[in-house]
C-alpha cells in the first residue's frame, strides 16, 4: 500500500470525464424517477480493518445494462461489491437497490461470490448448492418446495451442467464450479445479478457459456454488474464500465468511458501499449 502514490496524481486529471458522466447520470436518474435504477451507490466508503479500501464511490447501474467494474489489482473492486451488499460494513455512503434500501429488496438481487471464497471440499452436491438460491422460499424444517427443486434443475441445464446434479462439488473443475455458482444465482430469480470475477480461472468454453447466459438475461430486461479483469474482452461482453482505483476514475457507456486517459488514470500508466490499445479499441 505505501508504494501506491502514483495513482493519486492521475486521479485529479480526468475531472472532465467524471463530471460529464455525473451530469449524464443525474439527468437520466431524473427522467427515471418513477422507475428506480437497479443499483445506485452514493459516496460509498468501505474499509478493511482500519484502512479505507474504496473511497466515496458514486455509481449507477441502469436497467437492462451489462456493467463491468474494472481496475488494477488491489483497486478495491471486490471490496466495493462486498460493501455495497452489506457483507463488509460500510464507513459511509448510501446503497439503493431498485430505489429502496438493500434489506428491503433481497429477492431482487443475486450475488455470485468469487469461486475461491468457499471450501469446495464441503460435503454438498451440485444440486444442493443450486437450491441454496431458493433459500428465501424454503419452508419449515428447511424443506424446499417442489417447484424450486424443479427450478434448480432447470438452472443447471441453463448453464450446461445438467447431469452433474448429484456430483460432489469437490469433483468439479474450476469452470464447472463457476457455472454452478451462476446456476445458484439464477435460482434466486432476481432482476439484478452482481458477480465477483466470474471469469477468473475458467476455461474458454465456460467463459463463452456464461457470457451467453448473461446476455440472454440482459435481453430479457435483467441487469448484470460484474467485476472484470480482462481488458481485451470488455467491449465484447459489457456495455457500461466503472473504472476504479480506490476512487472512481470514470463511469459510463463503454465507448465514451474507456478512453486512453481514463484507463491510464486507473492503472497509473502501468499498462503496456498493447494491452492499452486492446482495451480502448
Amino acid at each position, binding site marked *: 500500500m505505501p508504494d501506491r502514490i502514483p495513482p493519486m496524481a492521475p486521479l485529479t486529471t480526468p475531472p472532465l470525464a467524471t463530471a460529464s458522466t455525473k451530469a449524464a447520470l443525474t439527468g437520466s436518474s431524473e427522467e427515471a424517477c418513477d422507475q428506480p435504477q437497479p443499483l445506485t451507490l452514493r459516496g460509498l466508503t468501505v474499509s478493511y480493518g482500519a484502512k479505507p479500501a474504496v473511497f466515496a464511490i458514486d455509481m449507477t447501474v441502469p436497467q437492462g445494462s451489462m456493467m463491468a467494474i474494472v481496475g488494477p489489482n488491489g483497486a478495491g473492486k471486490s471490496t466495493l461489491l462486498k460493501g455495497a451488499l452489506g457483507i463488509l460494513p460500510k464507513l459511509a455512503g448510501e446503497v439503493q437497490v431498485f430505489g429502496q434500501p438493500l434489506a428491503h429488496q433481497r429477492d431482487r438481487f443475486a450475488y455470485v*461470490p468469487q469461486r475461491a*471464497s*468457499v471450501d469446495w471440499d464441503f460435503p454438498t452436491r451440485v444440486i*444442493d448448492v443450486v437450491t*441454496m438460491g431458493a*433459500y428465501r422460499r424454503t419452508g419449515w424444517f428447511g424443506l424446499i418446495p417442489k417447484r424450486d427443486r424443479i427450478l434448480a434443475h432447470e438452472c443447471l441445464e441453463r448453464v450446461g451442467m445438467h447431469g452433474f446434479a448429484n456430483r460432489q462439488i469437490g469433483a468439479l473443475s474450476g469452470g464447472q464450479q463457476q457455472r454452478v455458482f451462476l446456476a445458484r444465482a439464477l435460482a434466486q430469480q432476481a432482476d439484478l445479478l452482481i458477480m465477483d470475477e466470474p471469469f477468473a480461472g475458467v476455461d474458454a468454453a465456460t467463459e463463452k457459456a456464461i457470457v451467453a447466459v448473461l446476455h440472454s438475461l440482459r435481453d430479457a430486461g435483467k441487469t448484470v454488474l460484474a467485476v472484470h479483469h480482462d481488458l481485451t474482452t470488455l467491449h465484447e461482453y459489457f456495455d457500461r464500465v466503472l473504472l476504479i482505483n480506490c476512487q472512481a476514475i470514470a463511469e459510463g457507456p463503454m465507448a465514451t468511458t474507456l478512453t486512453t486517459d481514463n484507463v491510464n488514470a486507473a492503472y497509473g500508466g502501468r499498462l503496456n501499449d498493447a494491452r492499452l490499445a486492446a482495451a480502448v479499441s
Partner: protein
Amino acid sequence: MDADLLLRALTFSAGYNAALVAVGATLLGITAGAIGCFVLLRRRAMVSDAISHATLPGIGIAFIIMASLGGEGRFLPGLLVGAAVTAGFGLWAVEWMTKRTRLTEDAAIGAVLSVTFGLGIVFLTIIQTLGIGKPAGLEGFLLGGAAAMLRAEAISVLVMAGLVAVVIALSWRRMVLVAFDQGYAETLGIKTNHTDRLMMLLALAVTVIGLKIVGLILIVALMIIPPVAARFWTDRADRMMLIAGGLGGIACFLGTAISASGDDLPTGAVIVLTATCLFTISMLFAPSRGVLAAWLAWSRFQKVVHRRQGLLALSRGEPILEPVSRRLLAREGLLQPDGVPTLEGKAAARLVAEDEARWALARRRDPDGALAGRYDGLTPITQVLTPDQIAVLDADVRGQPALVAGVGGGRLAHE
C-alpha cells in the same frame, strides 16, 4: 463386566430409571452429533472445548449459592444454570478476545479453557473444605456418571435434549448455508453472526445437558467424533447431520449400558471409546470414502492405467519397460515372459489403438465439446458413444486423410 446386567441394560429391562437414563443419553448423543456437524463444518470445534471447561466454575458457584441458602447443593437444574452462565461467559470471552485483540482463536481458546478449568477446580476444593451441602458426587461432572442419575434428572435431560433437537431441525439449512458460504448467506438476508451465535448456544446447551452423563472433559469428543465418522459415509451435509446423530445416539446408548453393567466404569469415557470404535469402523470400511475403498479404487485404477499404456506401447511396437505393466499383461496371457506379445496380446493392442484413434478424431472435431471433456485416456469410447455414433466415427477414421484435409480443415479455417 456383568453380561446379564449388560443385556438387561440393552433391552431396557434394567428398571424404569435405567431405561429413562438410556433414552436420555441416546437423545443427548443424537443432538451432540448433529450440532457437532455444524460446529465442525464452521471450524469452531475447539471453541466447544473452551465452553465445556468453562462450565466447572459455574457448577461450583451454583453449589455454594444453593448450599449457603440452606438448600440442597446438588439440585441439578440449579447446577446446570450455573454451568450455562459461566460457559456462556467463556464463549463470550473467546469471541471477544478473537475480535478485539490480536490473539488468534486458538490462543483465546487455550486461555479461556485453562483459566476457567483452574478456577472450577479451586471452587470444588473450597467446597470440600467448607463442608456444606453434601458435596459428594460433584466430581462426577468431570467424567460423567449415568448410573447415579435420579429420575427427575433423567427426565430433565430428556426434555432439554428434545428441545435442542427441535431447534436444530428448524435451523439446520441456515447453519449449513453459513458454514458453506458466509458472504452469500449474508446477501440472502441471513444474519450470519446471529446464526453463529445460535449454533454455539446449541453446542453450549448440549454441553450442559451432557455434563451429568458424559462429563465436561469428554463432552467435546461427542461433538467431534460422530460428525467426523459420518463424513466417511456421505458427501451431503444433511445426511452427515443425520448419520452423525445416529452414531452419537448409538455411542451414548451402548456406552451408558456398558458402564451401567458393573465395574464402575466412568460413563463419559466408555461413551467416547464406543464412539471411537464407530469412527474406526467408518474410517476403514465406509464405501467410497473409507480407507479400504480408497485403496481398492487406487489399485483398480493403477491396473487400468498400466494395462492401457502397456497395450498402446505394444501397438506401436515398443518394448514395455514398466515391470508392473509387464506383470499385469503376462498374467492376462497377453505377453510372453521375454516381452513379446502373444496373439491375444496383439489383438488386444489393436483394439486399444483403435479406441485411441476414435477418441483422437472425436476430440479433434469438437475440442471444447462435452465428448472431449469425457476423455481421460482410460475410458473406452464404446462406453461413452452409442454403436451408431461409433459406426459413423469409424467410417471417418478409415477415410481420415481426406476428411481432415477437407471438412476438418475447412471448419478450422471457418472459425
